[in-house]
């Protein structure tokens, strides 16, 4: 079975500060990893994903995440956040044998303050 733990339910941060949203997973099989973002009153949007290859993946809006197999982590980072990054962020995994089934964490609300 797979499970995902997002250690922080809420992360307050000032604008232009760096941020790290933590994600750890548990799985007996190899997995693909994802970060989704949900802006207020919108659906979840895929932010970035790790399928294979380089363990560092980047999104178009400055976020990056690094897959650490030994620590079973996939933390999300951004060196300088903007007000517009205020949203809820979800980490998810899917087993490589059934990539149609996602297991999500409980979400982290990022609140960027001016």
């Amino acid at each position, binding site marked *: 079975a797979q499970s995902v733990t997002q250690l922080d339910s809420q992360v307050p941060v000032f604008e232009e500060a760096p941020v790290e949203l933590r994600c750890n997973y548990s799985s007996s099989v190899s997995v693909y990893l994802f970060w989704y973002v949900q802006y207020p009153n*919108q*659906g979840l949007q*895929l932010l970035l*994903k790790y399928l294979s290859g380089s363990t560092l993946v980047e999104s178009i809006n400055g976020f990056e995440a690094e897959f650490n197999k030994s620590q079973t982590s996939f933390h999300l980072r951004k060196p300088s956040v903007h007000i517009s990054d205020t949203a809820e962020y979800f980490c998810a995994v899917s087993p490589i044998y059934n990539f149609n*089934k996602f*297991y*999500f*964490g409980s979400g982290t609300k990022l609140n960027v303050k001016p």
Partner: protein
Amino acid sequence: EAGVTQFPSHSVIEKGQTVTLRCDPISGHDNLYWYRRVMGKEIKFLLHFVKESKQDESGMPNNRFLAERTGGTYSTLKVQPAELEDSGVYFCASSQDGGFGQFFGPGTRLTVL
């Protein structure tokens, strides 16, 4: 291109009543998924359709939940009779070529009183 749409956006019903949620996937997407998020907890997989066929319904909580996708286009999720613990946000997602690119709808917030 229109995204995944869900109707209604909110629903408030009494315990024991029936509610039907609807999801319209992105046109041409054969894969359709239902998820549920209860009380700010994790988003949980309910089931997966490929066209009109249920590919995986391992996440459906019990037989009070019935999902259909007649004709392989839109899908409905019926809860009958609704219980208090069914309250939550129900998300629908669709994809064209498997799980790598699931596009989510805004969700339906269901409140059972």
